[in-house]
């Protein structure tokens, strides 16, 4: 991975040189001018994916590519809409009991599996049982283990009871539903991986599986009986191209229709007329943020003023410019911008080395004239910032932080460590001082496992050992309610407290930067991105490039 990135960078420099001069990419110019033609079925849509899929039953995979392909083949009961709210997918409606403990689902009728078998509540029950089966190697059990009982009321009604109210309950049923009639015996034997459906999947989603050539491509064809209407794009091909530089060249040669750009590609290498004509670029906040975290068991970082001082010492604008050419948004807290629980009305820390120094002085760190901060015993303030290997972005962040901290008299070293050792030797054993890392955040604001003081164990996620009784209570209340209006209050307060406390310095949410061939119409960017209405994307008849079956 590290090598791949290096290559991409090397290429970046070279391609920039090329685009500056000469008749670059003559092949890109002859595209017929794309007008807004009428929606039409057909054409093949080619996506580049950097990694091969790991398997075709997404429930037991944990890589992005498998989930992307899985989303096309399988559906859940609910899905996130363009504004990141959950709406029914295969569910017609759902209802909580007044104590929030019982959740009743009404399913849409006339949904069929790709093999023609009808989809019913039995399949939902089966999926639940498969997920909690100890022999099923899935990473997504947690929310299902909270279920006390589940029952099929009638073929189109399904009911679950929870031991405690679980706010994420609805979201958890966006899990891909699996066909009972095909997989029952494999789940019982703990052989889900070996089932034929893991290489020839049968789902209920908008696309049917056609072919998987390991390391090469995955081919899907549209499901013409899809319950939300037949998708326009007739065929979707995922091409495995393990190198970011190659993906970019394929894009320029029009070998792929969709790819994610790097920041430098987005800002510097795609701003020439031929590219702008052949592709449309999109930009929206992704669901992952980068942070500068501290081990709060370390007395130096346990002092809130020190963390606030660091927040003041960092110029987030400069950071985003330097690392991502500004293609990111400042993070004020851990909730995904654009989602219903998000607020930015929280304490901000403007860039001010003076304020930072004042706060540090208050906390007992004084400059004795040599530009180095020392405590009362004369010990200098210095520590190591650690981050994982293979992520150039985080390394650059660490370097900029190092420089900014040096400016206020704090000396830091940077150490970059291979991911698995990093987690095992430093994070889990809590043998770190400061880290640059990231969190991916879900659509639901519940972040109990990251911030609650009960989650500090070596295998748990509150690695920085953050403990704040108010936050604990807010998290408990937030996850125990099934009323969004009520939860909003808790999560707004939660963000305020975190911003005040700065248990870690929230740096930025990176922007997602997809680029799509301009012959594809019907894309409507929204807070959740562009992919929510994929089945409505189409290519007008006159500009279709491939015939598809």
């Amino acid at each position, binding site marked *: 991975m590290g*090598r*791949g990135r290096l*290559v991409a960078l*090397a*290429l970046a420099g*070279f*391609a920039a040189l090329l685009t500056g001069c000469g008749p*670059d*990419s*003559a*092949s890109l110019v002859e595209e017929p001018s794309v007008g807004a033609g009428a929606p039409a079925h057909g054409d*093949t849509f*080619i996506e580049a994916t950097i990694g*091969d899929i*790991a*398997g*075709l*039953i997404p429930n*037991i*995979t*944990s*890589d992005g590519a*498998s989930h992307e392909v899985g989303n096309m083949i399988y559906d859940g009961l609910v899905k996130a809409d363009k504004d990141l709210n959950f709406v029914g997918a295969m569910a017609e409606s759902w209802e909580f009991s007044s104590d929030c403990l019982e959740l009743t689902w009404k399913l849409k009728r006339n949904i069929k599996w790709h093999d023609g078998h009808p989809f019913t509540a039995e399949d939902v029950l089966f999926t639940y049982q498969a997920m909690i089966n100890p*022999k099923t*190697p899935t*990473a*997504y*059990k*947690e929310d299902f283990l909270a279920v006390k009982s589940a029952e099929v009321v009638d073929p189109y009604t399904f009911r679950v009871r929870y031991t405690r109210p679980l706010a994420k309950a609805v979201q958890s049923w966006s899990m891909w539903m699996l066909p009972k009639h095909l997989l029952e015996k494999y789940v019982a034997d*703990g052989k889900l*991986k070996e089932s034929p459906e*893991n*290489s020839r999947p049968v789902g209920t989603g908008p696309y049917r599986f056609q072919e998987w*050539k*390991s*390391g*090469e*491509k995955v081919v899907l064809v549209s499901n013409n009986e899809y319950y939300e209407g037949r998708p326009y794009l007739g065929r979707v091909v995922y*091409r495995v*191209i*393990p*190198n970011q530089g*190659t993906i970019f*060249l394929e894009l*320029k*040669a029009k*070998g792929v229709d969709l790819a994610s750009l790097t920041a430098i590609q987005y800002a510097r290498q795609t701003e020439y007329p031929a590219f702008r004509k052949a592709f449309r670029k999109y930009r929206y906040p992704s669901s992952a943020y980068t942070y500068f975290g501290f081990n709060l068991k370390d007395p130096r970082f346990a002092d809130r003023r020190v963390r606030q001082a660091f927040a003041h010492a960092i110029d987030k604008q400069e950071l985003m410019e330097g690392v991502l050419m500004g293609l990111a948004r400042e993070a004020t807290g851990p909730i995904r911008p654009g989602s219903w629980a998000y607020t930015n009305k929280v304490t901000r820390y403007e860039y001010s080395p003076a304020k930072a120094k004042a706060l540090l002085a208050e906390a007992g760190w004084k400059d004795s004239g040599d530009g180095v901060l020392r405590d009362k015993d004369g010990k200098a303030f210095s520590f190591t910032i650690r981050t994982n290997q293979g992520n150039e972005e985080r390394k650059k962040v660490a370097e900029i932080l190092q420089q900014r901290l040096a400016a206020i008299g704090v000396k830091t070293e940077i150490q970059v460590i291979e*991911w*698995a*050792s990093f*987690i*095992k*030797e430093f*994070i889990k054993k809590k043998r770190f001082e400061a880290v640059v890392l990231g*969190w*991916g955040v879900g659509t639901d604001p519940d972040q109990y*496992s990251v911030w609650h003081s009960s989650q500090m164990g070596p*295998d*748990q996620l509150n690695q920085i050992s953050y403990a704040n009784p108010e936050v604990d209570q807010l998290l408990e209340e937030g996850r125990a309610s099934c009323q969004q209006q009520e939860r909003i209050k808790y999560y707004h307060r939660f963000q305020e407290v975190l911003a005040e406390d700065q248990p870690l310095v929230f740096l930025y949410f990176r922007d997602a930067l997809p680029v799509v061939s301009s012959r594809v119409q019907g894309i409507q960017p929204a807070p959740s991105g562009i992919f929510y209405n994929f089945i409505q994307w189409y290519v007008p008849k006159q500009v279709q490039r*491939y015939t598809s079956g």
Partner: protein
Amino acid sequence: MLLFALRRLLLAIPLLLGITFVSFIVIHLAPGEPVPGGEEDLGRQLPKEVVEKIRELYGLDKPLHVQYWNWLTRVVRLDFGKSFQPDGRPVLTKIRERLPITLFLNVVELIIIVALAVPIGVLSATRQYSTFDKVTTLFVFVGFATPDFWLALLLMILFGVQLGWLPISGLRSLNWEYLSFWQQQWDFLSHLILPIAVVTFGGLAGLSRYMRQSMLETVRQDYVQTARAKGLSEGTVIGKHALRNALLPVVTVLGLSLPGLIGGSVIIESIFAIPGMGLLMVQGVFARDYPLIMGNLVIVATLTLFANLFADITYGLVDPRIRLGGRRRR
């Protein structure tokens, strides 16, 4: 001779066992586990009991020597187990899928390299310090010094993006099924031109320099002098008497490059998106897919041992001065 081969073959068994044992230990000692949830941002959390259950399922809960023994007893029956990755397919199937293309590419590359390097080496030796010698020396060293990923990208930009003559990556076009037989062959071939060109260019230097050196030494030998003195034509002297002897060390080097044939190059495969052995192995390492890594290792180790043996035997065959068996100890 037969005795020698047999003895070497028998000696290879404990050696192979040793290799697998050490690899097995080292691989398992590396941090990280093939349990789901170890993904990049630690986003998922599995209850302890679940992790235990999965480790049990994979047999990872047992002591290391027991795991090794279990693995070994299966391998002697040629059962390399199933991949730990979510597709759960047998290791041998996965390797069999990837091996042909890697083998094909490497064999073609090797043939081209030999076919070019031997004449280049011979000519630069017989015309030492001539313009030809200087130019080829420069050429092969430029090839040697050029990073292959960089050259690959340059060629892709030129032939793939700018000129549009050759496909950039992959093995087949998407409309491959709809092409006629000959179009299919051309399509496949055209995808291989760039990767083969890049590897060949980079690989020429070693062998051609070796050939040149060996040839230079040979032409100074007395028997070459004798051949010339007999009045044989220069062509016969070089082509018949000198070349044969000069090829000896080159054959040894070639023998040692045989195991590399199935290894595959990660850099070339990832740049050209070729689904070969190199990528498979790296993917296996990242996923901590122990059965896959071990399966791959056993095959490469076995081939290396065989290639060594093969090189030794051929050496004896082509050079009668080297006596095998007897008191020779190795």
